[in-house]
């Protein structure tokens, strides 16, 4: 669409192809060259590039802003890096025991993004199961980072951005005083076709919000508003 006149040429090429028989192959080639080189008067006049192709950026899977400068998503892959650069991230919280893809490690390294590992099960080592939930300890660790403005802009992510990320964000909403129905609705919005896990919701409901220590001199403004 950005190339005015080119459409017509394509059209002619196509019609040439349709009529293509071994018999007039030579003629076709010759005609093709005309279009490719644009060395005709017609070409010079009509082939105008109105604007360059639009560059589209790709947010990671399940990406969504949570609050000002706080984001959630699944594991970012190289196709998402230009998008992540737009966010000017200072910290990424990675909610798994195993390391994320090398490309993400490299990306964080190059752009000075602190990658924080919130171990799911410190004793589990490499035997981490993707369906294991988070321990209270690791939730508190992640939230302790979230309630500190020094770490912003901040991205919270796990493999798919569903349950582990959902658990941490859910507990954050509890701290902010959201009623449980709204917390559950938000959690389930990101869980995909298989739906939410009751265990995750039980964890969120039972989470003792007093365990997260909030330093009001460092808390983000929306959190202070929530705690007023």
């Amino acid at each position, binding site marked *: 669409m950005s190339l005015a006149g080119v459409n017509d040429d394509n059209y002619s090429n196509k019609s040439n192809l349709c009529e293509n028989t071994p018999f007039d192959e030579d003629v076709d080639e010759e005609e093709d060259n005309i279009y490719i080189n644009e060395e005709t008067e017609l070409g010079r006049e009509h082939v105008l590039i109105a604007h360059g192709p639009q*560059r589209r950026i790709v*947010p990671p899977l399940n990406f969504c*802003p*949570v609050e000002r400068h706080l984001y959630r998503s699944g594991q970012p892959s190289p196709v998402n890096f230009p998008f992540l650069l737009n966010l*000017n991230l200072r910290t990424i919280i990675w909610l798994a025991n195993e390391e994320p893809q090398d490309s993400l490690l490299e990306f964080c390294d190059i752009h000075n993004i602190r990658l924080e590992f919130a171990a799911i099960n410190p004793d589990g080592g490499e035997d981490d199961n993707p369906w294991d939930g988070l321990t209270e300890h690791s939730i508190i660790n992640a939230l302790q980072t979230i309630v500190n403005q020094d770490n912003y802009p901040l991205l919270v992510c796990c493999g798919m951005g569903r349950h582990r990320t959902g658990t941490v964000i859910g507990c954050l909403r509890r701290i902010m005083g*959201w*009623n449980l129905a709204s917390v559950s609705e*938000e959690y389930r919005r990101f869980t995909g076709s298989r739906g939410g896990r009751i265990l995750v919701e039980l964890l969120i409901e039972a989470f003792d919000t007093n365990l997260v220590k909030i330093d009001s001199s460092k808390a983000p403004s929306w959190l202070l508003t*929530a705690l007023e």
Partner: protein
Amino acid sequence: MTGSNNETGEASAIDSLIENEAEIIRLIQKDVSMLRDNGNGNDIHRIINEDKILKGEFEHILQRFHDNCKREDGQLLEEDEEDLFDKDEHMTKSEEKREFQSEAQQEEVIPPENFSHVAGEIYRSSFPRVENFQFLQTRLKLKSILVLIPEEYPAENKEFLEKSGIKLYQVGMSGNKEPFVNIPSDLLTKALEIVLNPDHQPVLIHCNRGKHRTGCLIGCIRKLQNWSLTMIFDEYRRFAFPKARALDQQFIEMYDDKEIITLANKKNWLPIQW
């Protein structure tokens, strides 16, 4: 392809309703005494409403009509009902909540359904009810609300906006319903112009369920942020679940953003701040 199916399905259902209604009229006309009793024989709907037995029969037939429709073309009708802003429903649900709230003074806040942060100081949600007002005022500290329904804003919401100094903007859209109702592009441009203006922020965008019309508008905002269409659709479906509409996605893709981009560039609104 689905459109033509829907059309025939709907048409035959309507045909059967008309047939049924004609039958009722015949019955009424046969029973002349009843016409005299009511004085006004011209107003068929009044007669039906005033006569208990007849009303029951009529409702029974209507019920059958709806059942038929659901079987043949269930999704369409269901969706439309859901999308429509129902004043009575809004009232009763709010009333219930009001009583409930005064009894149990809780410190919890209740964001509206389908609520989310969009970008900067732009938020989205479904129709806010009484129980959500506190959240909108004290947490979001809204300056304005953009509502995308054509119906009149309910009095209690208006009252709340007045009290808390929130300005209301209304861009009435009727939604991308099958078969041929479209949100015109210039309405969307108008809506974007309101939302992107920093003087109006923090701003909340809502329609009835916060799924379709709001989803279209957010999709267009994402276009201005240069998101890939695939991820725009993914976000749209997440919020519209389980009622995503292919037509809305078509609309987002085909929306011509040239005008709003020119305008936004002139006013220095782009890029949209996170």
